């Protein structure tokens, strides 16, 4: 134990850290991977996190995002790779010496301690003095607005309050890095929105560097400076919310970013960045993205957001004829699921006046339909795979 460097620094005071300044310069993950026997939960992951950044790991359950977080926290040993914090290697350091703050999905509050006892726990372990502990705990409790609840036990608190205790407990140590594992997934919808802005506020006020795991793309988009989209243990794309939203790298990311219409079609002709694709009753012109090989006769996946599909006006060339099947009321707009004569499902937004059973001629602008070359060559291996991927987004 004595040979490992102690990364913690219990003597820091909140006053010493300027509100926006981060204690962390750069955290570098190099080829971090984790396998359970022959099953690889996380393929080599390379990621550099800068101080003050809010990075979200986004993906469906089982994509390896929590594995990555546990590796960062030191709760899981790495199978390969290294983690370097400002030039010091930390992946060989046990969790208690890493000094990272972690917020667990189930909060993991100590049920036998009061709110104050929970928040002070880490300071006590570090041997911080009593007066200093009281001062820091008070300050953090004020920040998360729990001063009134300080004497209560976790069992007496609401879900949102427990969640704030968990955050307070993690940040009172002034950790260089805060790890959050789906902290909002146990809360109801209204509280989730409220806590989302709370987390962002705390991140900024304390000058934290945060890695946040979630399966909710809305949460990730609204909170994070940078997103890492994972699928089956591999990185699909890393970028800012705008980059991912506007330019998804593959159909999987597109599905996560709200492109609910994912259809496998055959390329008919290519001209510049535009291509015409069709299959069965669908024919449309789309914009080529993804930079793979596209040629006539190959398969491509088209990704379109529901809000970009509209009912064709007079004189417009429809991409398909379909019958509205499910019409959901979403306040200002209707969300319509229509089925073409050949069984393809098309999701679209409409202003009103559509009822189940109505026949619709729908269209989309060419720059709003993204075409991804399908992996492999030749005509489509499995057209059913793309709509399946679309299910992931909701």
């Amino acid at each position, binding site marked *: 134990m004595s040979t490992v460097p102690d990364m913690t620094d219990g003597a820091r005071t909140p006053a010493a850290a300027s509100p926006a300044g981060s204690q962390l310069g750069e955290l570098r993950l190099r080829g971090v991977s984790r396998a359970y026997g022959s099953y690889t939960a996380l393929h080599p992951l390379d990621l550099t996190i800068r101080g003050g950044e809010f990075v979200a790991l986004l993906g469906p359950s089982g994509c390896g995002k929590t594995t990555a977080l546990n590796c960062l926290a030191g709760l899981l040993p790495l199978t390969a790779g290294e983690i370097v914090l400002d030039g010091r290697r930390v992946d060989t350091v*046990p969790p*208690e010496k890493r000094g990272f703050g972690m917020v667990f999905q*189930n909060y993991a*509050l100590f*049920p036998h301690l009061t709110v104050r006892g929970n928040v002070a*726990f880490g300071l006590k*372990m570090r041997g911080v003095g009593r007066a200093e502990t009281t001062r820091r705990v008070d300050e953090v409790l004020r920040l998360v607005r729990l001063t009134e609840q300080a004497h209560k036990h*976790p069992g007496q608190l609401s879900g949102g309050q427990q969640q704030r205790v968990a955050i307070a407990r993690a940040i009172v*140590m002034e950790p260089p890095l805060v*790890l959050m594992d789906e902290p909002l997934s146990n809360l109801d919808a209204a509280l989730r929105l409220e806590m989302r802005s709370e987390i962002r506020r705390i991140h900024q006020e304390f000058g934290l560097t945060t890695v946040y795991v979630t399966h909710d793309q809305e949460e990730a988009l609204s909170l994070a400076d940078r997103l890492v989209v994972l699928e089956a243990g591999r990185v699909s794309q890393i970028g800012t919310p705008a980059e991912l939203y506007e330019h998804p790298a593959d159909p999987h990311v597109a599905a996560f970013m709200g492109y609910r219409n994912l259809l496998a079609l055959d390329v008919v002709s290519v001209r510049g960045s535009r291509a015409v694709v069709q299959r069965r009753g669908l024919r449309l012109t789309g914009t080529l993205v993804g930079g793979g090989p596209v040629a006539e006769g190959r398969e491509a996946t088209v990704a379109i957001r529901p809000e970009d599909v509209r009912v064709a006006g007079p004189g417009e060339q429809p991409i398909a004829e379909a019958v509205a099947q499910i019409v959901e009321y979403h306040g200002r707009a209707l969300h319509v699921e229509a089925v073409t004569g050949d069984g393809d499902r098309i999701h679209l937004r409409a202003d009103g006046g559509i009822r189940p059973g109505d026949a619709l001629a729908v269209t989309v602008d060419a720059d709003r339909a993204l075409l991804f070359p399908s992996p492999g060559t030749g005509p489509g291996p499995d057209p059913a795979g793309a709509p399946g991927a679309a299910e992931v987004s909701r």
Partner: protein
Amino acid sequence: MSGLPVGTAPAVAGPPAKAALRHRLAERGMDRTLLLVLPAALAVIALFCYPFLYGLQLSFQPAKGGVFGAYRQFFAEPFSRKSVWATFSLAIPASLINVGVSVPISYRMRRDFRGKRLLLALLVVPITLGTVLTAEGILEFYGPAGWFNRTLHLLGLADSPVQLTMNYTGVLLSLVISGFPFAYLLTHSYLSGIHPSLEKAAATLGAGWWQRFRYVTFPLLLPGLMTTFCLSFVMAFAVFPSAMMVGDPNGSTHVISIEAYQAALERFDYAQGSADAMIMTALMLVVLAAVTGLRSRLYRGSTGGKG
């Protein structure tokens, strides 16, 4: 009951409809499933309550010495008085050893490792052996000519056989062997009720393994350990067969149960035997009340990950 505001008051102007009798009974926890308790309740009354009360009144009717004569006799006679000490000096160490040894073992047994099931089976098997079998085994194994002493002799560790049977050590051994599986199983289930994420959280907060145990796991486990101690103590306090077979029933292991047995079935003084049994019960209850009282002052809420 505050849950019965409606219907108990007589009808005034436009009273709300009176709740059905069935609902009012259900409010007090009475419904037809209560009948399921009936057979056990009858058995307890017939087989425990009645004999207990019969014994109690018997203990107040000794042949001589008035109402409390048998009780006075017990404490006046040094031989019988010492049985209190003999019983406590066996039951308390045996329970402490059983609980104390269960903690580290079940702490380690939470995680998977090769051979875990085999080890678990070995730990729990003594439960299936009767006290008499265990006692005979101890006599054979630890006796003066048993394998244990022969091995010691072969290794040159002892010149003369170490006396491990027919004395205090033999009974303590027997109590540990037969009591440990219960203590272990209880501790194990209490421990597995503590969510593993609590220790992980403690680790990320800078607690080393000892601090994690000392400040998180142990406080959450302590009420369970006290319950385990109580059960273990009750079993050890009533020690009888092993105290007779591998102990020194007329000396260091002359426990209260032997005293009561000899009074009732060797001297045929039923009143004295009943009084001895009542004293034993009272002493046991004092210890249980003390431990339970202590326990009620601890945190006893949920031990899950979510407070």
